């Protein structure tokens, strides 16, 4: 494994994080060429970097599982197919397995898109749409659900719509308090919720906007990103292909909160860990470019649940910065003064350790970044 040190990139700024403990802050960064780990302490000023891991496979999403201490990375090699990579020692050593991670009905699996760990299991979202589970720490997998029978499933199960294409399970959100409850996004179709661990599903798209014809009333929406308040589980935010939306009832109903943002389009989003009304997004040009508007990098922040928005761009490049950030490319930590992080499709990682008041670039030359997740380890 190659190893690179990044020292003192933030040390000219006084810390306002109040981090005097012994916490370790890890950024787990999935890229087009493997997984990287950036590490700091509770102050989040000085960062070191390790990697690339996963043998340089394209990593679409990587997460830290607080209950087991493992890192899981969803990766798909163009040569060797899809696999889940697992590290039990914070990235120092890795194993990979795809045992059972395949359809037996002839459907192709073009890639593993998303990984979610919790309640002693690992859930993996894949293309074509399906969710696999592992209950042995990523050693073996079995098919949990394809959401068969849901409105729209006949279209996404049509062989003509199979990958290479763009339909898959792009995200899974597990309820931390209820092992049977989680949400899944089917790309280009919408959000679904199960409360009985995938036995039955309910579309959760009421109130969303769609600027195109739809065959089914309940689906046909392009949900890019779902986030949920850590302090109020009823409160959800959603970056959609067309607009920002908010739900105050666990996704049962949505209302648009786009007004005040520079564009209605984007992928990445992050909630405030302690304030149900504060939330961050990164609007992008909705055309082919899908980069930050006018080459001026900015995170946008609301502190009133989307009634108003403000730029949070202090320290971000404001000239010729055509940066893209993908669905899982932004994360927030859980410190009293929270930090936020985002990684770009051109390989930079930007960090704020002062609740988005200022930003610093803490990595500059990574491969294209697919995902950024943060873990605070005591």
């Amino acid at each position, binding site marked *: 494994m190659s190893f690179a040190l990044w020292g003192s990139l933030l040390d000219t700024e006084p810390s306002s994080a109040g981090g005097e403990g012994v916490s370790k802050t890890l950024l787990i960064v999935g890229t087009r060429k493997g997984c990287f780990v950036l590490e700091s302490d509770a102050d989040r000023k000085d960062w070191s970097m390790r990697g690339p891991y996963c*043998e340089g496979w394209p990593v679409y999403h990587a997460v830290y599982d607080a209950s087991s201490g493992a890192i899981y990375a969803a990766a798909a*090699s*163009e*040569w*060797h*197919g899809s*696999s889940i990579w697992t590290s039990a020692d914070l990235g120092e050593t890795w194993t*990979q*397995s*795809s*045992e059972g991670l*395949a*359809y*037996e009905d*002839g459907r*192709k699996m073009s890639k593993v898109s998303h990984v979610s760990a919790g309640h002693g299991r690992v859930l993996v979202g894949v293309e074509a749409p399906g969710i696999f589970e592992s209950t042995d720490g990523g050693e073996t997998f079995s098919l949990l659900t394809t959401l068969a029978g849901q409105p729209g499933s006949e279209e996404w199960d049509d062989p003509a719509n199979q990958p290479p294409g763009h339909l898959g399970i792009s995200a899974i959100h597990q309820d931390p308090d209820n092992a049977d409850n989680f949400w899944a996004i089917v790309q280009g179709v919408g959000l679904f919720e199960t409360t009985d661990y995938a036995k039955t599903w309910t579309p959760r798209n009421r109130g969303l906007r769609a600027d195109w014809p739809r065959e089914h009333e309940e689906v046909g929406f392009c949900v890019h990103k779902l986030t949920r308040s850590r302090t109020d589980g009823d409160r959800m935010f959603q970056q959609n292909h067309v607009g920002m939306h908010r739900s105050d009832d666990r996704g049962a109903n949505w209302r648009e909160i786009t007004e005040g943002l520079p564009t209605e389009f984007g992928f990445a989003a992050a909630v405030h860990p302690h304030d149900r009304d504060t939330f961050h997004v990164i609007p992008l040009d909705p055309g082919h470019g899908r980069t930050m508007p006018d080459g001026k990098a900015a995170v946008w922040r609301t502190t009133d649940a989307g009634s108003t928005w403000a730029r949070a761009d202090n320290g971000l490049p404001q000239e010729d910065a055509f940066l893209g950030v993908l669905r899982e490319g932004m994360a927030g930590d859980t410190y009293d003064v929270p930090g936020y992080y985002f990684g770009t499709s051109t390989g930079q990682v930007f960090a704020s350790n002062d609740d988005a008041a200022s930003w610093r670039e803490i990595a500059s030359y990574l491969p294209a970044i697919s995902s950024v997740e943060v873990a605070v380890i005591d």
Partner: protein
Amino acid sequence: MADLHLPRTLMPLFPDLPRVVEIDATTVNEAIDVLEARWPGVRDRLCEPGPEIRRHIHFYVDKERAALDTPLAPSSRVDVIAAISGG
């Protein structure tokens, strides 16, 4: 015994897997079975369910492009290539 020459990209995934393996098998598919028995998981890295050879993995038997049912002779050389991809 046929000589099976494997791509470098497989080595880090399977401890002790050498670049060249001597295989006693009568077809390419059987050779992969032999590999799988010694290094569990290697079939998934070379084949998709079906089974069929992965799109960017190419097998050659004695310099001819091969399929899973291509026969092997005891003197065969099998080259497994991670074909042009990525970038």
